[in-house]
């Protein structure tokens, strides 16, 4: 492989620079199309061997970001760099060799008409790696690595349990020895006991193969367990990004604080958390003015209603909130959402 030839300037294995993706949404060919900004101006960096967790509510653009990282969607603006080289300038198949996905639903991510041997060796077949005998040996090696018994080689996905299926999906992703795995909610479709097994497997594989993970999840317990860096997304924007301990111990953005407060504890004496978020997730086709979070933010002021906060670099991460970038203006500006703040 050409791993030794990487440029010395690339201290990050994966980097996003102001990445945006806008979809034009229209009902039929004769209506006016409206822009949906699924991902806006995201900048983040991941070092080799790290686990970047991307968290956020449904519809905040996590999956769109994942598809762009995989090279399946092109950003409408900005660059995704792989070891300092823009992905757009790299051949699609070379991207595929280095970045592979693991999907949420192991029931839809495996072709029901194919045997495990066919599924796992698909990447090897497509890239014409090795002779058929070598591919078979590699498939068996990987199955052992992810803890699948060899006798399942010619089984069909319908004969497997959910956890086993997810192992197959991981095996397929690892077949070409990629450097980055993009895991899109890899455990949320599984039973709790199986979730732990899959997470442990991912941890072991990371140590063993020096993998880098981009871990998309809304399960903060999982994220806290796994990640070294956290990116919090809200309505397509990266509102907070930083090292995992930093974000979990000292969340700075009010949304991150609310997210962490929303984690359920198994302690019976605590009831459901009250996070005072008010109304639901805004319509992405008609996002709020200013800071997109202001209608739900307990600290929002009139400034937040009209001014979009700029990302503020601090402590090795960024945060996008007027509370941190303009503390003086925030103190002077009259507060809105008063009742919510008092309820909290």
């Amino acid at each position, binding site marked *: 492989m050409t791993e030794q030839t990487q440029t010395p300037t690339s201290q990050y294995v994966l980097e996003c620079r102001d990445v945006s993706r806008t979809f034009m949404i229209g009902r039929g060919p004769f209506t006016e199309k409206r822009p949906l900004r699924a991902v806006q101006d995201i900048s983040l960096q991941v070092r080799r061997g790290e686990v970047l967790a991307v968290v956020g509510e449904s519809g905040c653009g996590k999956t769109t970001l994942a598809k762009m990282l995989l090279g*399946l969607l092109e950003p409408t603006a900005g660059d995704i760099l792989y070891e300092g080289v823009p992905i757009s300038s790299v051949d699609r198949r070379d991207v595929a060799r280095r970045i592979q996905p693991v999907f949420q639903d192991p029931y839809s991510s495996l072709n*029901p008409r194919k045997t495990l041997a066919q599924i796992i060796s*698909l990447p090897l077949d497509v890239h014409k790696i090795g002779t058929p005998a070598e591919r078979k040996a590699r498939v068996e090696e990987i199955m052992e690595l992810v803890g699948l018994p060899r006798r399942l080689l010619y*089984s069909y996905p319908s004969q497997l*349990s959910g956890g086993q299926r997810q192992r197959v999906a991981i095996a397929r992703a690892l077949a070409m020895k990629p450097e980055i795995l993009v895991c899109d909610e890899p455990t949320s479709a599984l039973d709790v*006991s199986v979730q732990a097994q899959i997470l442990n497997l991912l941890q072991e594989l990371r140590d063993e193969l020096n993998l880098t993970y981009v871990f998309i999840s809304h399960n903060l317990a999982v994220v806290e367990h796994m990640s070294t860096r956290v990116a919090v997304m809200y309505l397509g924007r990266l509102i907070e990004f930083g090292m995992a301990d930093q974000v979990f111990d000292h969340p700075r953005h009010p949304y991150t604080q609310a997210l962490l407060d929303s984690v359920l504890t198994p302690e019976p004496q605590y009831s459901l958390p009250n996070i005072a978020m008010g109304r639901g997730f805004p319509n992405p086709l008609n996002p709020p003015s200013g800071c997109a979070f202001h209608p739900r933010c307990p600290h929002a002021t009139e400034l937040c209603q009209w001014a979009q906060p700029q990302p503020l670099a601090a402590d090795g991460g960024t945060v996008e909130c007027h509370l941190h970038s303009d503390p003086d203006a925030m103190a002077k500006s009259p507060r809105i959402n008063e009742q919510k703040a008092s309820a909290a």
Partner: protein
Amino acid sequence: MAPNDTAKATATWNGASADDFEVDAPSPGAVMRRRARRHLGLIIGGTVVLIAVICALFAPLIAPFDPYDQELTRKLINPIWGKGGTWTHPFGTDALGRDLLSRVIYGTQISLTIGVLAATLAGVIGSTLGMIGGYFGGRVDAVIMYLINCKLALPPLLVALSVVSVFGGSIPVLILVMAALFWDRYAVVTRAATQQIRSNDFVTAAEAVGCSKTRIILREVLPNILNQIIVIASLEMALAILVEAVLSFFGLGVQPPTPSWGLLVNEGRQYMFFKPYLITIPGLAIFFLVLSINMMGDGIRDITAPEGRN
């Protein structure tokens, strides 16, 4: 379930953790074979179709006479159940003294050739268009939907009649005309099925691996919609056999003296009132073959229908 089976199942259940639990489900092929053995319609239909295929393939060995051999001294002999019928001509002879049984047996060759080839060719055209439209979506899909709508606006029998009357009624012309007329149902069904398959993560996974679009359509999508295509193929095949019979009956299809079933009905038309068997026997042949093919198609649909997930 036998008592020791239950015991074994319980033992496995107790001894295994959630992920180790042995899922001893049969493979998709085994499920299909098991359902096929219980499906009466499929067995009956399949048997009749199998007999027809054997007749077509081994017609020279099975047929007692040459279907073109005229023997005017033995014309219009009644079938075995009629007055003066003999075992030499179990289905009797026609107005030119040709053995009707032999002509019906050779007729299966015409019907099946036209049915299979027209249905296959139409299937290739329709499934290709349907899968492309369903997979790519957007403008490509709009163009293909437009083509399908144009095709649906054509009256098939009228077009077939006019084309055949211009180019003459040979078997290749019939096959091509029917292939060009019967692809729309394939396209509609494969398009919808492809849209549904496409939204599965295994298609995204194949894209992420770097598969070409062609490979994804042929290797990932096609195997999952092949069942539906086979079911439609059986229906279209039956339809093609019927249309061939209709065209031949009108004298616009296969030309005499070729023993097409539609042509046999047409030739028997003038003797309808005193030698009705000349019409009923080839008519029943058409009826049973088309019915059996439809029953077989329904059976295939039933045995390949997914149960629950996958």
